[in-house]
């Protein structure tokens, strides 16, 4: 930051550095704000690294993809409303469900959770930034470019049409000539790269940047959920990246991974895909659970019941999720013993979920409930998930799965789980944290309308699909004949989908209107207990002018500390970090004792340039393998420039330097 450095030219003696200080409005607070804001202008916009700026863009981008994916779904539903409809043909329908599934899974559900985490995790932990802010910016740009690329080719008429799981040999070179499946495979690489980098960012932030006193057993449950999710990403995403790389090589350079004629094997694709695909559902679901654990205590006005049990069941869910992928392949010829094992494991995973649900119910039961919109969405979650979970247990049994395999029963089940388990908590979370992000509350009245329309529309749209499936309607068909007994229920489902669309529209109206007309929120409009509510709304660029010291799980609900509380003096906040350069406090992994003062780099354009270079390589490689060779040169240059230290910055760091053993 040029302006911040100007206040203290390089080479100054360390003693004259401005240290962070008490409250907003002071000279120190102004310096902190200047230090941590993003530079002005268009270039500054591209160079931004503040985690809140990046997160706002990230959330907005994923929401646009949600709208796009929803529009595609609406077209499908309109097509299926009547038998023999001619609204779209089979070719476009194939693209529609592929684009819808891929958008919802890869461009919305997982990234939106990571985007929210990028905003909230540092605030909840009481720190000024996310770890590796430049990497965070890079991950966002990569994600944006990958998603936009997919939609550009769709609009140009070359959208992928082989399903969101791109089964080979259908997606292989023989059955899918042209470039459609290549664009799909490259989009996977973009989004998974982004997800993996975000996982590293979140893990490092949680382990190293917590406020002093926030020991492992005081971390907010949402942060725990995101931490466990990040670990799952580390082990699940490489699988689909490997698979999509093999696919694109089969298509472009004539390798034979999935070609049975040359010793390849199509089931290998399914194994690699579902080794990712099943945990993927939990990557969407666990953050949803995290939202619930943040919202429920606030509106029940009491700390969560069974904190430790909650954390352990999050971890158990993550482990079990990896053992389950084969249940997506019951229709494949696999050894019988294996199938029984996976059936058992699929049933087992209900246990940790049941523990969580029990703890929430206990919290709600013993609390004084305040039925605001966020809590309504939580209650909607309970209702929907119970149904979705039951159909899931039904599907986990091999004979039934074989019966309803690839029927609308599965479509109903997956939407009950995904929308009930993730989208409802997400909407609740949006209402809950909107005042923190914007400084204003959303309208309660519109919020209630929003919830009831969504809830009703959802059940009207998806409940009939269970029955359609049992009556034999297969999924992924662009139309059907009259007189099979499917007509009425399809019409009902379409009306439900239109109701959902109305609900989403209402949500947008509420969100946009409240930006200007919402009631001012203040720091803590709900009276919540976690740290993100300890700072202004919206938070200043540095998050906290004074880093808080934590003494309990709900720091804002703790009684004020005095000397009498214990042998150690009851610190309330941290002092002594530089205010005029990006200095952060790192703490120890387990018990969050102050450990280091680390220097963070300034905003820079290079993550953006690197992302452009990476995009050029990946898109180029769809057309020629040489793009991999020539494309790596600009990437190397951009990355080198990114890591190359600036002399001015270094001299500031040197003035603050203190060796580890000094």
């Amino acid at each position, binding site marked *: 930051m040029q302006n911040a450095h100007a206040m203290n030219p390089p080479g100054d003696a360390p003693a004259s550095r401005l240290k962070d200080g008490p409250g907003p409005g002071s000279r120190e607070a102004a310096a902190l704000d200047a230090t941590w804001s993003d530079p002005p202008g268009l270039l500054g916009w591209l160079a931004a690294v503040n985690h809140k700026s990046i997160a706002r863009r990230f959330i907005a981008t994923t929401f646009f993809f949600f709208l796009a994916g929803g529009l595609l779904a609406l077209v499908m539903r309109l097509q299926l409303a009547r038998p023999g409809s001619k609204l779209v043909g089979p070719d476009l329908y194939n693209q529609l469900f592929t684009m819808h599934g891929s958008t919802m899974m890869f461009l919305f559900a997982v990234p939106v959770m990571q985007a929210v985490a990028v905003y909230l995790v540092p605030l909840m932990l009481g720190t000024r930034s996310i770890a590796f802010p430049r990497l965070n910016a890079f991950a966002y740009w990569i994600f944006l470019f990958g998603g936009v690329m997919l939609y550009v080719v769709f609009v140009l008429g070359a959208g992928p049409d082989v399903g969101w799981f791109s089964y080979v040999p259908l997606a292989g070179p023989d059955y899918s000539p042209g470039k459609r499946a290549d664009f799909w495979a490259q989009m996977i690489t973009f989004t998974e790269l982004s997800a993996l980098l975000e996982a590293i960012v979140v893990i490092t932030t949680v382990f190293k940047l917590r406020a002093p006193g926030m020991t492992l057993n005081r971390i907010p449950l949402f942060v725990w959920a995101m931490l466990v999710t990040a670990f799952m990403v580390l082990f699940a995403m490489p699988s689909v990246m490997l698979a999509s790389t093999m696919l694109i090589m089969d298509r472009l350079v004539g390798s034979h991974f999935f*070609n049975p004629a040359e010793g390849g094997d199509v089931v290998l694709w399914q194994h690699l895909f579902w080794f990712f695909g099943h945990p993927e559902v939990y990557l969407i679901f666990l953050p949803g659970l995290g939202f619930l654990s943040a919202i429920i205590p606030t509106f029940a006005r009491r700390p969560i019941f069974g904190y430790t049990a909650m954390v352990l069941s999050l971890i158990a869910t993550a482990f079990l999720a990896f053992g389950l992928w084969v249940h997506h392949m019951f229709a494949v010829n696999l050894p019988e013993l294996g199938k029984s094992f996976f059936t058992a494991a699929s049933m087992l995973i209900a246990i940790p979920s049941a523990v969580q649900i029990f703890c929430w119910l206990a919290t709600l039961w013993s609390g004084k409930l305040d039925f605001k919109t966020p809590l309504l969405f939580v209650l909607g979650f309970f209702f929907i998930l119970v149904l979705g979970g039951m159909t899931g247990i039904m599907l986990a049994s091999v004979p039934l799965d074989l019966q309803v395999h690839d029927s609308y029963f599965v479509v109903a089940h997956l939407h009950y789980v995904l929308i009930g388990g993730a989208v409802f908590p997400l909407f609740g979370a949006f209402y809950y944290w909107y005042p923190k992000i914007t400084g204003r509350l959303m309208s309660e009245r519109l919020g209630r309308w929003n919830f009831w329309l969504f809830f009703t529309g959802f059940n009207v749209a998806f409940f009939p699909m269970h029955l359609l499936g049992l009556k034999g309607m297969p999924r992924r068909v662009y139309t059907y004949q009259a007189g099979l007994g499917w007509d009425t229920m399809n019409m009902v489902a379409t009306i439900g989908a239109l109701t959902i669309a109305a609900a989403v529209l209402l949500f947008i109206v509420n969100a946009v209107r409240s930006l200007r007309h919402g009631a001012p929120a203040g720091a803590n409009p709900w009276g919540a207990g976690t740290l993100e509510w300890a700072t202004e709304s919206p938070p200043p660029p540095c998050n906290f002018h004074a880093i808080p010291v934590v003494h309990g799980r709900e720091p804002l609900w703790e009684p004020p500390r005095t000397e009498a509380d214990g042998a150690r003096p009851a610190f309330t906040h941290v*002092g002594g970090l530089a205010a005029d350069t990006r200095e952060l406090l790192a703490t120890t992994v387990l018990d969050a004792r102050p450990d280091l003062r680390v220097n963070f780099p300034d905003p820079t354009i290079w993550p953006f340039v690197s992302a452009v270079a990476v995009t050029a390589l990946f898109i180029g490689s769809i057309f020629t393998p040489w793009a991999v060779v020539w494309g790596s040169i600009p990437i190397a240059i951009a990355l080198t420039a990114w890591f190359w230290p600036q002399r001015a910055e270094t001299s500031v760091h040197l003035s603050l*330097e203190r060796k580890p053993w000094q």
Partner: protein
Amino acid sequence: MAMTRRELDVSGLPSYAFGHRSLMWWGTFGLIAIEGTLFALAIGSYLYLRSQSDAWPIGAPPPQLLWGTVNTLILLASTWPNHKAKRAAEACDLLRTRRWLMTGLAFSVAFLVVRGFEFGALHTRWDSNAYGSIVWMLLGLHTVHLLTDTYDTAVLGVLLFTGPMEGQRFADVSENALYWYFVVFSWLPIYAVVYGVPRLQ
């Protein structure tokens, strides 16, 4: 919050550190977890394809042992300069850090040259059949890691000579060495699979 504010003064803390105290260590740890998973899955795919095939290797003799074995020895030997560079960095000894980092770099360049011969001695091509594809994939994945790490080390080396120098650079060298260990030790199972499995009967 409270009316009486008590300040926990952190201005005396060090500004960088090594191992799991440093943020870079966690970044490297994440990278290793990802890449390790990738290698494990690629090896798994190799074994899976083998289990589905009547003959293995398909339509080719097993790869020639010479270059792969030479390379394994080079890699194992490179742990020594690597270890020295890590120790020197952790003692913040600039001169010795430079020297050992450059020695390590020479090892990786030698390795990359021999890797070229190794591809030539596989007796199969990526587009011959599934066996060729997966062998090239395994070797290719490992080579990409080597290429990037070599480039990384080179950039770090230039920085150590031209500056600007600050303590954090020593932590970078230490993490770079950790990653090198990963590249070396992940090679051993890949070596065993690429050269050993085709020889099992």
